[in-house]
């Protein structure tokens, strides 16, 4: 399905971990949001882009065995919820390690990688993954 424009649209956020900070309450949002869920209309026009450090810790994780078509060559992979040092939590793979090394609370940092490969269109999509520190 026509993914090209969506790939391009989200790329700065996926390539450089660009978050949105609320100019009203200072909360940081990743994935970025145009409205702060705490401040509502008081945040309109006050959400500012900010680059994240890419460092954080593993909140929880799973080892995915039953994988969608775009991930067949990566099976099995570790998918985690990572709480970044700046506050927000995101969903990403943890790579370059044996799944048995992954544990709750472990420190991780972001790396730029190939994320998925669409078998039909051949499109390769890039973005962040994480490695153990």
């Amino acid at each position: 399905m026509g993914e090209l424009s969506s790939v391009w649209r989200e790329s700065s956020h996926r390539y450089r971990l660009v978050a949105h900070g609320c100019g009203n309450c200072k909360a940081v949002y990743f994935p970025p949001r145009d409205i702060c869920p705490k401040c509502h209309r008081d945040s309109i026009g006050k959400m500012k882009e900010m680059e994240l450090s890419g460092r954080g810790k593993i909140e929880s994780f799973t080892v995915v065995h039953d994988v969608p078509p775009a991930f067949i060559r990566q099976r099995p992979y570790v998918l985690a919820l990572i709480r970044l040092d700046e506050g927000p939590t995101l969903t990403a793979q943890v790579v370059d390690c044996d799944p048995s090394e992954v544990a709750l609370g472990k420190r991780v940092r972001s790396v730029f990688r190939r994320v998925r490969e669409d078998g039909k269109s051949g499109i390769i999509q890039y973005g962040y993954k994480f490695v153990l520190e």
Partner: protein
Amino acid sequence: MTEVHIIGSGETKFGEMWDRSLRELAVEAGLKAVEDAGIYSRDIGILYGSSSLAGTLNLQNDIGSLLADFSGIASNGIPAVRIESSSSSGAAAVREAYLAIRSGEYDVAMVGGVEKMTDIYGSEILDIVGTTLDREWETFFGGTPAAMAAISARKYMHDFKVGKEAMSMISVNDHANASKNPNAHYRNKITLEAAMKSTPVADPLNLMDCSPISDGAAALILASEKFARSVGKDGVRIKSSAIAQDYLALHSRDSIYTLNSTILAGKTAFEKAGLKHSDVSFVELHDSYSIYGLMELEDLGFCKKGKASELVMDDIGLTSSLPVNPSGGLKAKGNPMGATGVGQFVEGYLQIRGKAGERQVKNASTGLLHSMSGTGSTSVVHILGGA
């Protein structure tokens, strides 16, 4: 405002039905419900179709029109729209029908939920069920519904020091009850040992923790008190209806094992019904993944947070003080997504009238039905009966 009664129900068998199409399934359930209600098609004032994924799975949208057309009532010109809210579409459609009658605008409403899932082969189905998550920020990075449930499960097990057997027990109970339900996808009983050792899907969840890919349809006829009386039907009253929302993506929530939408919808449903937890004779839970069964029992208020394992390991069978999923639940009755929530009402309607056969819960007067989207973005809670 008028009371709203269920006066008829119908469903197909749930399962892998290679020889049945989307429309055949939908029409079969719809006609059974009309027949059961003993009404004529001219009595129906409005129709709500529900399907979670038909647009992507079967390349067929406009399920409301499809249902009206092939039930033979298109020329009546009645409104027929589709309600979609991911895996809670069916329950959300029943709620819309409830509101339509409760407002006084219509006397009789029909709800038809359907999903035809087995026309897709292999792992491509994961791309499609993945649309129930946040596509840009979960699915894009390798998230699947099972993976997100597994992420909640691991932290839950860690923080509350709960072993895997509590989750497996949810599935064991589902299969035991489904063995008594002729419409269930799986009618085999499973042992706790087998449930714990099955094929890994997304660690710590295995195949026996995950609801299957099912075909199926379910339908209901709802009516105002006045209409129900005019045709001499008591039916089963929908005592209360509630729906609530949470963040779409799991990572945006404060707690990954607390279902805020379920807490809110449950609380509202009890308040509106004027009932207590001890009044409930049985519950139907949206256990698309076994871990959700535990989280839902807690977030609906049947036990304290982190304590569902005690309840589940004690007894949740048909003769216990709180029978869970007498129908067989999503794990064993099956999960044809747009039909699943409507199917819970079919079970509730049978149970409260004492027509549930071998799986009948004794003195079933009040049932709580819980349906949920994805990882908990929407929860819908209904309380039936309450007499």
